[in-house]
């Protein structure tokens, strides 16, 4: 509890000065928390269910001895949010077979191609043989982008410069790297209203049977993060999430809602454009950020 008290210090300071929680204080406190969460891009329905749940729990459960009720309320909220992310334990990225095929999925410009290279470098550093495949036939020079990144990190690359059929490129890319430990397949950006592209990524999924589908989410996106995840899930399963652009000041409630929707685990965050600006996801740190601490 000591460490938590430290994390929540700032918020707690604000609400210090009331000794016990009466109904009115509880109301005011929960309003303040709601506003904090709204500013963090957490959708209203989640905001409401979180604060209601936290208030209910604090009324039912007696805070442990020595813990002020206010502090306990924040702790409860923190717990709920961490639970939503699948617990405090960071989720590991663990290739469980060979080759382990990873498919990256996401909205235009969310950071997939950059993330493909970051993940490849992360794995190569840990001794895995990794191949990178570019299947984006829509964005001009997507081929050059990933090829240049692959060269920079010293990982083999497969792509077809003037390719037209993403599904066929994906198949050939995976075939080409069948002796690797991990194959990372990058895809073109697409969104919830682009039906033909959603069907295309389903076809890629069917063609290469990925072991892990990773949704790449831009931390600066608001409500659309969850809406996009929901649309994607109608076409293919989502196993894990990587949140990019965490070097912004965005608090990540949009991504949080998307994670809640998918039930997937977040594995990494991107904290800059460089291939090394990539970190393992820490639920604790992330929740503290969402709560504005």
């Amino acid at each position, binding site marked *: 509890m000591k460490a938590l008290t430290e994390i929540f210090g700032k918020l707690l300071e604000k609400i210090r000065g009331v000794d016990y929680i009466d109904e009115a204080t509880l109301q005011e406190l929960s309003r303040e928390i709601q*506003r904090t969460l*709204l*500013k*963090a*891009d957490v*959708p*209203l329905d989640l905001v409401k269910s979180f604060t209601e749940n936290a208030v209910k729990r604090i009324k039912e459960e007696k805070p442990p001895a020595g813990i002020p009720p206010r502090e306990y309320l924040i702790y409860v909220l923190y717990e709920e949010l961490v639970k939503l992310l699948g617990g405090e334990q960071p989720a590991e990225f663990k290739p469980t077979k060979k080759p382990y095929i990873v498919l990256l999925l996401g*909205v*235009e*410009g*969310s*950071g997939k191609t*950059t993330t493909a*290279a970051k993940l490849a470098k992360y794995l190569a550093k840990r001794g895995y043989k990794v191949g990178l495949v570019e299947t984006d036939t*829509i*964005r*001009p*020079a*997507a*081929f*050059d*982008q*990933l*090829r*240049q*990144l692959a060269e*920079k990190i010293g990982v083999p690359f497969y792509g077809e410069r003037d390719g037209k059929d993403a599904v066929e490129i994906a198949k050939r890319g995976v075939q080409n790297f069948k002796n690797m430990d991990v194959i990372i397949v990058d895809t073109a950006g697409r*969104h*919830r*209203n*682009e039906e033909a592209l959603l069907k295309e990524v389903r076809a890629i999924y069917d063609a290469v049977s990925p072991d892990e589908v990773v949704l790449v989410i*831009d*931390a*600066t*996106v*608001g*409500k*659309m*993060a969850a809406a*996009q995840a929901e649309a994607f899930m109608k076409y293919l399963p989502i196993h894990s999430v990587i949140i990019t*652009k965490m*070097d*912004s*000041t*965005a*608090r990540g*409630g*949009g991504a949080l809602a998307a994670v809640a929707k998918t039930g997937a685990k977040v594995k990494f965050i991107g904290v*800059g*454009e460089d291939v090394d600006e990539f970190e393992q996801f820490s639920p604790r740190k992330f929740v503290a950020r969402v709560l504005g601490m």
Partner: protein
Amino acid sequence: TLSEKDVDALTSDLYIDLVESDVAVEVADAVVEELRKRLVGIKVPRFGDKNAVIKKAVFEALMGVIDDVPDVDFYQDSKRLLNETRPVVVMFLGPNGYGKTTTLAKLAFNLQEMGFRVVAAAADTFRAGAREQLEEHGKRVGFKVISGPYGADPASVAYDALQHAKARGYHFVLIDTAGRMHTDANLMEELRKIQRVTEPHYSIFVFDAQLGNEALEIAKYYSKYVKIDGMIATKVDAYPKGGSILTFIYVLKRPVYFLGVGQTYRDLVKFSKQEYIGQLLA
């Protein structure tokens, strides 16, 4: 007339709608406060179509809140400018991946359709594939691209393009810049330098319509470092309501010239406050 109590109920519903549509919380606060003033005392019929009257009042009040930012027709405006000066310099700037390069290519396509000659500067000398991306657009649309090697000073690439355009009588110079996070002070300084060297007539801030509350932070930081003349929202095809559009208009007080509504060259449409506010309230 609408009583204070009616207005309270109305604005509190509206507040929730705005926040749920990603208008930044602080902007929603301010907007609703202004709306409140505009709505109190408005006459509504006791019977009949009360809702329609209220709806119209809310629409007009919201339009009133962004009254000081006119719709600007970029084509007309820049054509007028072409009578006085040539080339017209247009710079694209904004955070990573929001659509600058694609939007530049769309604008180049449209300007060329109107008969103008366009040269582009590949002043993103940083991101992998950035140069090839712009050059490929140039090939497809048929505009000239001036590039430098990766790692070159972006301001000097932009300056070269400007000289090239002057020498050969091009109408427009479109400068593509690298995406950058507002939190990176060095990169923001670099952007300021490109602006100082090329003195663009139009510095266009490009943003993703799907942005949430971070739009407010981005607006604050960007306007601290660079001059912004107008804006373009992209990926509106994914999110026509996109509340970040209101956030940016309200905070930056700059017109939105266009909306990006898809990935083809024709997917650049003129922005209209009226249509947008209609979408937002729909």
